[in-house]
């Protein structure tokens, strides 16, 4: 008897969901979960309703308020963004009409889509999950095939329970070795994109593997997978292991246990062939920070700015050869679906304890990734550590991760941010964004300038 050919995890999930392959190359693929948020959700639901199309299976569609919702404590439907309330009220009405589960503004389970979906066990290993939000790939950390789509595709997924897509190629990114102290999953993601470009993963479903990936806790795996879209990959994911099953077991929408042999099959077989392979030595990585206007403009924090497109240098106000350390900053932000889970806040609080935010900083804030993270952090007293240091403590939401007309800083202001995008204007007109790990945000907030978190950790240890 011949052995079946070894398969990648991607191929297993794809084959299990393929309903039919059209004559023209694309496949009709079953979609297990759809997630919506108020930025794009109301538009999709309203457009479906206008076309007279019901949601195929409302029990598998979820919605949350995260993008425009105010993050100041005591919030209601009011928003800092002009006209933003309409997104909230219209999403609420549309979700109700469609009969889908909504985690509303002040629901205890409210939070950023990609933070609450794992928390509630909505995403599971081996499922297909889509949302009209590019960072849906975050959820691949639980062993799912999760990816971002547009509004029309979201309508398609909700109306039919399927999507019609071309099969992506496969890529494996293997991180060998062990991360040095002070180097995190965020730095792994930035190092990958800096080395292989913001388009480096285009057309590929990317499996992250290797010792350094296996060593990551589930929350850190989400940070790594979060930035797969910044690599232009269709999806990023990690094969589920004992940590994954332990994390998910018993969560509200998840099975109570993962004992069936099925769960153990969700990994790439020995000898499976990928269309592309990248190997990175994790032990060689340093804390990374972005210098320009694309995540690919990232560099080791203690290096000199490389030569990039002149437009990026002009926007960010740093020429090639400049040292990044010591660059004065105005705003420090810890938040987003990249780095605002409990483990991120714990590491950040441990570093900031006993220090103060520099008086040079105009604003420093911590915005928990979900309301559950907020409660857990408060129970541990992390909020007090942050506020004593001079950080503002907020309610959960996307907040300063992107600018929709809310909190505004003068043009040219420089932020250090635990987010995932440093595009021109991403955090407001003329704002210069440097993305980095929460550790680097803390070190920089204390110094008032971009600073190496490893130095601060040394001081704290003494």
């Amino acid at each position, binding site marked *: 008897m011949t052995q079946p050919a070894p398969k990648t995890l991607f191929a297993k999930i794809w084959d299990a969901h393929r309903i039919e392959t059209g004559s023209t190359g694309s496949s009709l693929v079953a979609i297990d979960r759809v997630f919506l948020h108020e930025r794009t959700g109301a538009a999709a639901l309203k457009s479906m309703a206008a076309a007279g199309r019901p949601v195929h299976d409302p029990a598998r569609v979820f919605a949350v308020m995260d993008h425009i919702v105010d993050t100041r404590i005591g919030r209601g439907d009011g928003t800092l963004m002009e006209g933003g309330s309409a997104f909230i009220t219209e999403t609420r009405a549309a979700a109700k009409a469609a009969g889908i589960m909504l985690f509303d503004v002040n629901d205890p389970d409210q939070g950023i889509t990609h933070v609450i979906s794992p928390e509630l066990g909505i995403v*599971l290993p081996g499922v297909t999950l889509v949302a009209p939000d590019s960072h849906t790939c975050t959820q691949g950390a639980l062993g799912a095939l999760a990816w971002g789509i547009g509004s*029309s595709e979201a309508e398609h997924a909700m*109306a039919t329970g399927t999507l019609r897509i071309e099969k992506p190629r496969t890529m494996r990114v293997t991180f060998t070795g062990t991360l040095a102290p002070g180097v995190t999953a965020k730095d792994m993601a930035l190092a990958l994109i800096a080395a292989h470009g913001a388009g480096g993963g285009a057309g590929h479903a990317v499996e992250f593997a290797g010792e350094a990936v296996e060593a990551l806790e589930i929350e850190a795996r989400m940070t790594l997978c979060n930035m797969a879209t910044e690599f232009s990959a269709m999806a990023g994911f990690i094969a589920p292991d004992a940590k994954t099953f332990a994390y998910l077991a018993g969560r509200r929408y998840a099975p109570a246990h993962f004992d069936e042999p099925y769960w153990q099959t969700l990994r790439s077989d020995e000898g499976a062939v990928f269309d592309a392979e990248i190997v990175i030595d994790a032990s060689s990585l340093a804390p990374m920070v972005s210098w320009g206007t694309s995540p690919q403009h990232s560099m080791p924090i203690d290096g000199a700015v490389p030569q990039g497109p002149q437009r990026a240098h002009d926007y960010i106000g740093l020429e090639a050869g400049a040292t990044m350390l010591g660059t004065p900053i105005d705003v420090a932000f810890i938040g987003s679906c990249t780095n605002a889970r409990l483990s991120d806040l714990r590491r950040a609080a441990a570093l900031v304890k006993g220090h103060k935010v520099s008086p040079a900083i105009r604003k420093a804030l911590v915005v928990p990734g979900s309301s559950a993270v907020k409660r857990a952090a408060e129970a541990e007293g992390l909020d007090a550590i942050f506020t004593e240091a001079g950080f503002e403590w907020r309610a959960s939401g996307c907040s300063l991760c*992107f600018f929709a007309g809310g909190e505004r800083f003068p043009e040219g202001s420089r932020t250090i941010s635990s987010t995932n995008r440093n595009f021109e204007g991403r955090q407001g007109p003329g704002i210069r964004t440097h993305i980095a790990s929460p550790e680097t945000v803390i070190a920089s907030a204390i110094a008032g300038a971009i600073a190496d978190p490893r130095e601060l950790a040394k001081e704290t240890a003494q």
Partner: protein
Amino acid sequence: MTPFTTLCSIAIPILRDNVDTDAIIPSREMKSTGRTGLAEGLFAPWRYSDVAARVPDPTFELNRSEAQGGQIILGGANFGCGSSREHAVWALVEYGIRCVIAESFAPIFRANCIRNGVLPITLQRSVVDALAWHQLEIDLAAQTVRAGETNCTFTIEDEPRTMLLEGLDVIDLTLKARDAIAAWTDADRTARPWVYLEKTA
């Protein structure tokens, strides 16, 4: 959806790499939950020297006199990267753009183009560069781009080509496979019962 067959227009070069959807339509320009009222915000950070006062920046390609009425944009690598917002394509369509020719596209943006009747053409960078400010004739059925005497071909998968040529609504197309979807779901319900949730809302 308006079918796409042929198109004659000047090609407006915005030949930068990694043009992201925040640049194509900034979040603050997405003022309502609908799909309209977006054209004015198209490329707002680059198009206006004073965004609030809507003062055009004469150095931006879209503002040049020869670009007026143009329906084709040329881009660099990884065009449309970043946020999945379909508003980027809705804004392009409302402004009058029917085709983007670039060295490569971000996948979500490209899929959004096809769903909205915008033809995404991928060509080598040197070829894209050479098309700048030329009057182009695009023929989707023949998969050709003609600029004066020069003629080049492009490839696009059959399904998006058909969708664009016929202006098909994909959801209607898929709903024809209703029986296959139901049969698959029944079998899957037994194989993976945990996927199927009780209604909670």
